[in-house]
């Protein structure tokens, strides 16, 4: 019985860890500048915690194998509780320290520095259950938003007032996020109703939309392609279906796209 338990734990451990190591299911390819650091941090954490996981499980299995049904005189673990405390404090303590130091730098690069100068700003409005994107248009200025003017019926998702607000007249509204490759992008996130979230796995970025707050995030996409943007904050019955596409384009394609959108 003890041996059976030990073998079961060992098999579960090796299979579980093996699937991680073989990357059978793994992160999709990274297409962002800051994603490299995140992937590195995930890999480092995977290795460090993997050693703890396999070590602890196999020790459990080995000790159960050895002691189940034993009638030998009991033996205390060499050194008693001290090695446990020392191991935990030193090993885990070092791990905590290193992960915090390295990870904080990555986090700071994502969320604690301003978007680089020259970043393209796109305004994002989230609502049950869609994302809308707004570009400033040729004048480079966004029209003011007024919640009272928001109307799905009139396709006025941002509550603009083009009749009286000249800056709003050339704003470009899109249902997908088109962006140029290798250029910093600054998104300003708004929600008009409940909490939503912006998540593009390939960009390695996720951020909640919070009604009442305007939240900036920035990133730079490195590979041309079409990626799915999904909502990860429970927002109601259509949550599973709240999505849009991020289209990363070459500079010339993006310029053409903007021109086409402006003429619509």
């Amino acid at each position, binding site marked *: *019985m*003890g041996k*059976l*338990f030990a073998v079961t734990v060992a098999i*579960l451990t090796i299979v*579980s860890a093996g*699937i991680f190591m073989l990357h059978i*299911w793994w*992160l*999709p390819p990274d297409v962002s500048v800051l994603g490299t650091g*995140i992937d590195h941090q995930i890999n480092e*954490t995977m290795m*460090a*915690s993997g050693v*703890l*996981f396999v070590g602890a499980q196999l020790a*459990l299995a080995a000790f*159960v194998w050895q*002691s*189940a*049904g034993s009638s*030998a005189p*009991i*033996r*205390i*673990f060499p050194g008693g509780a001290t*090695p*446990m*405390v020392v191991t*935990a404090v030193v090993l*885990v*303590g070092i791990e*905590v320290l290193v992960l*915090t130091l390295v*990870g*904080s730098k*990555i*986090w*700071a690069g994502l969320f*604690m520095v301003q978007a680089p100068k020259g970043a393209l700003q796109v305004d994002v409005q989230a609502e*049950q259950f869609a994302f809308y994107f707004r570009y400033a248009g040729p004048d480079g200025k966004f029209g003011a938003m007024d*919640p009272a003017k*928001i109307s799905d019926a009139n396709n006025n998702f941002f*509550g603009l007032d083009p009749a009286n607000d000249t800056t709003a007249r050339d704003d470009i509204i899109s249902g997908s996020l088109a962006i140029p490759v290798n250029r910093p992008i600054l998104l300003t996130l708004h929600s008009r*109703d*409940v*909490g939503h979230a912006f*998540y593009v*796995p390939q960009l*390695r*970025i*996720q*951020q909640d939309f*919070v009604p009442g707050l305007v939240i900036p995030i920035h990133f730079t996409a490195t590979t041309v392609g079409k990626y*799915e943007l*999904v909502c990860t904050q429970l927002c*109601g*019955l259509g*949550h*599973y279906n709240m999505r849009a596409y991020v289209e990363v384009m070459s500079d010339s394609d993006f310029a053409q796209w903007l021109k086409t959108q402006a003429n619509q």
Partner: protein
Amino acid sequence: MTTPVRETVAKITELKHTPPQGFLRKYVFSLDHKVIGRQYLDLALVAVITGMVLSWLMRLHLGYPAASIPALGAANPSLMTPEFYLQLMTMHGTIMVFFVLTTAPFAGFGNFFLPIQVGAEDMAFPRFNMMSFWVTFLAFLVLVSSFFIPDGPALSGWTAYAPLSAIGKDAGPGQGLGQTLWAVSIALFCVGQLLGALNFIATTLDLRTKGMSLTRLPFSTWAWFTTSVIGLIAFSVLLPACILLILDRVAGTSFFLPAGLVFNDQVQPHSGGSPLLWQHLFWFFGHPEVYIAILPGIGIVSHILPAFTRKPLLGPRVLIGCMVAIGFLSYTVWGHHMFLSGMNPFSAILFSIPTLIITIPATIVTLLWIGSIYGSRLRLTAASLFCLGFVSVFVSGGISGFFLAQPSIDTYLHGTYFVVGHFHFVMGVAAMFGIFAGTYFWFPKMYGRMMNETLGKWHFALTFIGVYCIFMPMHYLGLAGNVRRYASFTDDYLQPLLPVHKFITIAALFTGAVQLLFFVNLIWSRFKGAPATDNPWEATSLEWSTSSPPPFDNFGGRHPVVTRGPNEYGAPGASDHLMQAGGA
């Protein structure tokens, strides 16, 4: 060596009560902590069956979206709508976290055994104790009643984030009366648990029998005591938060609702509130709640394991210190649920550090358990197997916490199945294994009959493999970016992951079916199990010094005198074990 303790015998004598008279006083509105403990456990049993059935329906739909569910489909073919899925999910989470993982290991076992383990005749406040259960029972009825109203139960998840939870029926189906019933239920639940926590604290501090110093308390009592202190603070915050939520919903206030919200193209008449305020209040409760669910399990396993390894647990004082440290640190980490919430990103780093540090006492506890098995005379029973299984799943669930504790990784994994796998392992499965271990261990004391060991071992073996098949793959899904709380996976990038969901569904249904072994064993043994002796496991703590089941006043009119700690197994030169209440 004995430690001087406060003389509490006089106080115990004052509380001496007479046997209950009449059916109602004996079995329904009982003041006896043992009856109340059993009532809590029975409530948890009903709740866990309910919660498990809800999860089967969810898993069936996720694994086989096209399949109709005969039992439900016949009545209403469109039953598994996206909103119904979210309602099942919300009720599953709420029922499991509150009415199973809090009630069974803490209120259930704690009520039954804490007074006995400290050598008291009852809780310090038996009437509060009775109220605690009945208010909790009422809370459960209120929650479940939302299944029977036209719009159905709430769908905003067990975390009930505002504005979705606060705005009312404009937010969608289930967000009308269903969400109000949810908030009322949880507010009532808080009241019930506050009454319970006060009782546990007062009983532990004031009603200990002669010789029962704090250092001689069993690990389980230490865990229940620490949990009570955590609960007293946590539920004191969730209660007003729920009241504010109810006011936002029914009285037009704006605690959690900012200006400029637009639903159905209409600006809502709210201003000045903050959705993040709800998140802070909820998680100030919510993270300690994780430890309310798991600390009793840690205590129960630490209490049970030495009885089966036949040697003292390593570092008993270190273990108690770790439990207290975990309890304290649990109040410094709530913001790790909010890294991506829009709060100041600098605070994410501050919340990340204690979150990572809390792994140190958790690691020490785990190593103490594993080191205690080394060189032991391990007796494998259903109870000890579930303790060993607890250690294994606690490691598996705890390890993934390393990832989520780091904001720079959470930015990828937050909101994915990685989180679902993590918390199910560490606070769901581990806590359930603690409950199972406690049940197999204490059942003879509670009912005077033994449970069937063969059924118990099969129950363990199949459940242990089953939970790994359910929850480990969720980590792989999360790494692949699989979003949680989705009623269907229609996104292109999720399509290759659907076979994994099928596998999880099959494993979940299998593991669920295996629980029948437990239910059958539980009911059969209650009436037909072999009669239990007073101390079938040769354990040391006070509950094993009295009859099985104990009399109404626990020790038959005598007050046990404690001469040693509960960890006296296999000491050199001594007999195999020394009872706490044995002579010096």
